[in-house]
């Protein structure tokens, strides 16, 4: 996450540092910094600027110029680092290469060290000028020394760099915190994504799911249908077998009954002729007859149940039968109506009109002339 306050503060501070470093460089190379009192053909103060100091053969001045060179270099570095930090703040604000931007911003922290170095060297120059007998700080008025003017921007740079370091370090730690947080969140999100991916990879597509569900439904229907058919077939077979068995059972019984009837007839004839001594046998025969009749009734009821079951198994049969009956009824009615409809010719006006015959005697009236009559 971008720290807006930090970005704006660092940008402002780096701009101010750039401006101040340019000013201090300008002051160093523009103002005459030291002066000497010449006592040759002109007895006056000679002012030395930075360029003049470079071309002197005086040892003391040479030493001071060395220190000035150091200050010059350090201010140049301050300028470069502050420009880099400004660029860093731009890069950081872009949010594209935030880490690189933050590194650039942190580069600006070197400004504090360099500004301390510059101030230290300047203080040393001031001290050496105070100690020397020949050299003195250059001034326009009695107390307006140029060397102190060059010190002012450097001191401001130091103060700004302290603020800069404070904001930059705070921002850095915040960034690290946010980065770690975001890293954890990203890891969590990645884990969740992976889990989701794996779940979805294992999950089949919509089409396959639909196909599978369709196949399942069909298989269930098929199983159900097959079970029903098998049951029907099995039940039919069983019932057929049962019927056959029963028929087989019934056939010998029928034969026996027929034989017995014949025998009875013969016996009756014999009874008539002679009273039979085997009355018990007749009773038994009667019982068997009754049993056979019961069995026959049972088979009939069984057949009825079977037919009803078959009707139940095949829905729509009754409906079809009903519809057929209805259709036949309607047909019959139509036929009857058509049969009853008769075209009649009026004997008076000779107009032909159709009428329906109702009953044996139907009264009719001509629609054109109004002549009345009866049809038998």
């Amino acid at each position, binding site marked *: *996450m*971008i720290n*807006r306050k930090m*970005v*704006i503060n660092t*940008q402002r501070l780096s*701009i101010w540092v*750039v401006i101040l470093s*340019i000013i201090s*460089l*300008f002051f160093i*190379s*523009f*103002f*005459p910094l030291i002066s*000497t009192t*010449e*006592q*040759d*053909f*002109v007895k*006056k*103060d*000679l*002012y*030395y*600027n*930075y*360029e*003049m100091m470079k*071309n*002197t*053969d*005086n040892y003391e*001045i040479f030493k001071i110029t060395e220190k000035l060179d150091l200050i010059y270099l350090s201010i140049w570095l301050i*300028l*470069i680092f502050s*420009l*880099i930090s*400004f*660029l860093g*703040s*731009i*890069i950081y*604000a*872009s*949010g*594209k*290469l935030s880490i690189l931007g933050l590194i650039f911003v942190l580069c600006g922290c070197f400004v504090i060290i360099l500004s301390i170095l510059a101030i230290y060297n300047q203080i040393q120059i001031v001290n050496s000028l105070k100690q020397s007998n*020949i050299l003195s700080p*250059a001034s326009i008025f009695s107390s307006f020394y140029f060397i102190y003017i060059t010190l002012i921007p450097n001191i401001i740079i130091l103060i700004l760099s302290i603020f800069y370091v404070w904001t930059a370090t705070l921002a850095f730690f915040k960034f690290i915190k946010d980065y770690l947080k975001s890293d954890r969140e990203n890891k969590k999100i990645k884990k969740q994504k992976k889990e989701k991916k794996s779940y979805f990879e294992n999950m089949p597509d919509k089409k396959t799911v639909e196909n599978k569900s369709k196949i399942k439904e069909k298989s269930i229907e098929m199983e159900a249908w097959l079970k029903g058919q098998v049951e029907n077939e099995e039940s039919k077979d069983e019932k057929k077998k049962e019927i056959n068995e029963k028929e087989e059972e019934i056939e010998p019984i029928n034969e026996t009954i027929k034989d017995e009837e014949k025998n009875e007839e013969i016996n009756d004839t014999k009874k008539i002729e002679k009273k039979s001594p085997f009355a018990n046998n007749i009773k038994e025969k009667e019982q068997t007859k009754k049993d056979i009749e019961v069995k026959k009734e049972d088979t009939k009821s069984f057949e009825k149940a079977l037919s009803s079951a078959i009707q139940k198994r095949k829905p729509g049969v009754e409906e079809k039968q009903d519809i057929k009956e209805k259709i036949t009824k309607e047909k019959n009615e139509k036929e009857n109506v058509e049969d009853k409809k008769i075209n009649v010719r009026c004997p008076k006006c000779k107009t032909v009109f159709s009428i329906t015959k109702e009953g044996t005697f139907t009264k009719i009236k001509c629609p054109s002339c109004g002549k009345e009559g009866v049809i038998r």
Partner: protein
Amino acid sequence: MNYQDDIPEDDFFRDIRRIRKNSKDDILDESFKKAEINKGIGSKEKKMLTKKPFLKLGVIFLIFMLIAILMINYFPWVYIKYDAEYGEVQEFFYKNFENERDFNYTEIDYIFKSPCTNCSNYTNNFIGIQKSDFTTTPKQTLNHFYILGILGAIFTIFAIVEKFKDFNKEFVSIIHSSFAMGGVLISIAIFLQNIKFLSFYLVFYNNFSFIEASNINNLIIIFLAPVIILFICFAIIIISSTVMKINFKDFEKIIKKQITKKSISEFKNRRKQ
């Protein structure tokens, strides 16, 4: 007392309907106005954000380089006027301290090199500028301007390529500001090289008595090319820094938008919680 007792039922319901309709219309009007206002602001913001940076900085660098080259090579570096024993002398000196007549003025040598040989604190000159400075500084400034020109050429090539290949806005603005930073650094270097010609006036004012002692009266020295170069450098510094600041402000707007979006989402989340 019931209000229904006074007002007939139909009138009562009619009033309610009218009030509802009016309130609805008001709400719709307000929302419509708000939507219109939002739409306007949004489009403006979008336009501002989608704008790519001003990619003519390279061309500006090249133009400044050409001007500087012309100034250094064909413009007089210094104008000197003084009263000598034989009369008034006024002359324009170009780079390498060459003049149109190719005449060597001995008095001018004393200006740039001090006549004092037995001074207590010996210095080469009293004004901070030597004759050699007119050969070294033009060379150095030319080299620096060449570097600036190369920088500008690279950036113009980048701008041309950018027209054909649509680069990312952030990337373009980062490169833009980095080139601007390079321009600022080079121009500061040139500025500090030529600042000695400006500081001459301060030293000249303070050390005038030493120059007077070398029998040169009514001396007027005006540096022409260095001052123009200083102005060019100043212009480059200002343009480059403004370009950098504009880029930064664009990003600042983006950050603001991001922060507002984030704050809205956070507020919504809090409300949900």
